[in-house]
């Protein structure tokens, strides 16, 4: 696998029995020796660690950093206090999605945007191009940062004694900077699994001892396969599947991330879509008969009529159910509505609309809310 980028933890992955695959130009472990199901279970029940160093880190620096961020993303960044984070789509003028990302407010003159590995170049160019009129510098520092996601219900308790910052004082979607086992980190209470946990950003050198320490404390290494399965069970979006340049945040069920009181790129298109009414919407399905597993791109039918397509399908190993996410018309597909999914030519399986998410893990915005913590 020539020309593929490797994270600083490449040798650690090999040592842990990682099965390395190509992922958007990176060579990353899809799983380790124990397999995806056990890795996912470790995250759901205890603590797992993912190397997500391939994620991109783009900084906005300068007097207009905050204003620039406000104009780029659909969510309301102006509400963020120092040390707070928000999840947001970033849209094109037509409302299609450039990427989904996390916005970290470090200071009023320094904003960190954490973006998908597959989109770093595209995002960087888009951000630069659309902030020319602002007093802001756009910096792609992806190569200087490594990132680990430590996820699971026991993470806070197990990591606290090694942390120089009080982990219980980092509310949901907030971060602090400080040492962990003597290693300088930015630690945020965020993740992509549906479980409570933290993401650690550190230097490419320091990430190796950090990874080793986390494993010594009991975190089980988990790969891309488990990451995708876990985010899917929690119904988190995957760029390229649920959200693309052809889907809008409204269609994807991300209206909660769109603040129409702000002026952002794509606002007019989204307002028009909202006013006209959505033609299609992302829904969750449970397959109710045996015969296989729906996969990305499978067609969805109502009787003989093709009505939509699957964005992700898999067996939820946590729930022991076969489930899928997919786009169907926004009208007429309420909970319980029966459809059919064509898993291959001439083979359709009965399925019904169910509630999102499929699974609610230990992630608890209320327990760790910013408000409660401040009282």
């Amino acid at each position, binding site marked *: 696998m020539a020309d593929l980028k490797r994270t600083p933890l490449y040798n650690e992955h090999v040592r842990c029995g990682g*099965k390395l695959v190509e992922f958007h130009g990176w060579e990353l472990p*899809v*799983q380790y020796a124990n*397999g*995806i*199901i056990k890795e996912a279970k470790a995250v759901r029940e205890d603590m797992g660690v993912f190397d997500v160093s391939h994620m991109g880190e783009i900084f906005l620096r300068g007097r207009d950093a905050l204003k620039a961020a406000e104009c780029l993303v659909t969510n309301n960044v102006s509400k963020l206090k120092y040390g707070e984070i928000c999840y947001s789509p970033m849209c094109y003028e037509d409302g299609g999605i450039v990427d989904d990302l996390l916005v970290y407010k470090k200071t009023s003159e320094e904003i960190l945007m954490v973006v998908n590995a597959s989109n770093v170049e595209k995002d960087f160019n888009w951000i630069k191009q659309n902030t020319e009129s602002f007093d802001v510098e756009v910096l792609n520092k992806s190569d200087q940062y490594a990132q680990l996601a430590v996820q699971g219900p026991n993470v806070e308790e197990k990591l606290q004694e090694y942390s120089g910052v009080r982990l219980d004082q980092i509310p949901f979607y907030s971060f602090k900077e400080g040492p962990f086992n003597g290693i300088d980190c930015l630690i945020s209470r965020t993740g992509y699994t549906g479980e409570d946990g933290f993401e650690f950003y550190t230097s490419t050198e320091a990430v190796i001892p950090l990874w080793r320490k986390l494993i010594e404390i009991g975190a089980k290494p988990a790969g891309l*396969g488990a990451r995708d*399965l876990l985010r899917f069970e929690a119904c988190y979006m995957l760029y390229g599947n649920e959200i693309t340049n052809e889907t809008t945040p409204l269609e994807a069920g991300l209206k909660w991330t769109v603040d129409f009181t702000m002026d952002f790129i794509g606002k007019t298109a989204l307002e028009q879509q909202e006013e006209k009414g959505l033609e299609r919407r992302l829904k969750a399905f449970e397959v109710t008969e*045996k*015969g*296989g*597993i729906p*996969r990305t791109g499978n067609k969805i039918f109502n009787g003989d009529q093709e009505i939509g397509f699957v964005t992700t399908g*898999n*067996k939820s*190993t946590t729930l022991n159910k*076969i489930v899928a996410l997919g786009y169907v018309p926004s009208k007429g597909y309420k909970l319980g509505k029966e459809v059919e999914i064509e*898993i291959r030519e001439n083979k359709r399986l009965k399925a019904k609309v169910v509630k999102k998410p499929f699974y609610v893990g230990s992630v608890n915005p209320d327990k760790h809310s910013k408000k409660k913590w401040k009282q």
Partner: protein
Amino acid sequence: MKKYTKSHEWIEATEGIATVGISEHAQEQLGDIVYVDLPGEGDTLKKGDTLCSIESVKSANDVYTPVSGEVVEINNSLEDRPETINESAEGEGWICKIKLSDESEVDGLMSLEEYKKMVESEG
């Protein structure tokens, strides 16, 4: 004695009945198996036809029959425990038994040694 195919199935034939499964190597490549779409008893198949589909958390994979004949027995326990294939691909994780319509088809398959060489060369 077991024989193997290029597409990573194994068979073991005795008295005109062949037990069929996927190789240890194939199971390793697939990762955690979560669903087996088993063939039907009484299905008549030609060598190379799709026998069944095995789904892992990553993907769906077709299994081809290495021989022609009639499916006479199915390992129904795979319906509830597909992971048996991960645990014992070339033992308890067998898929079905086929009554051979042409026993000479077995001779054309690879021995374990030949199969191992092929897997190594695929690297």
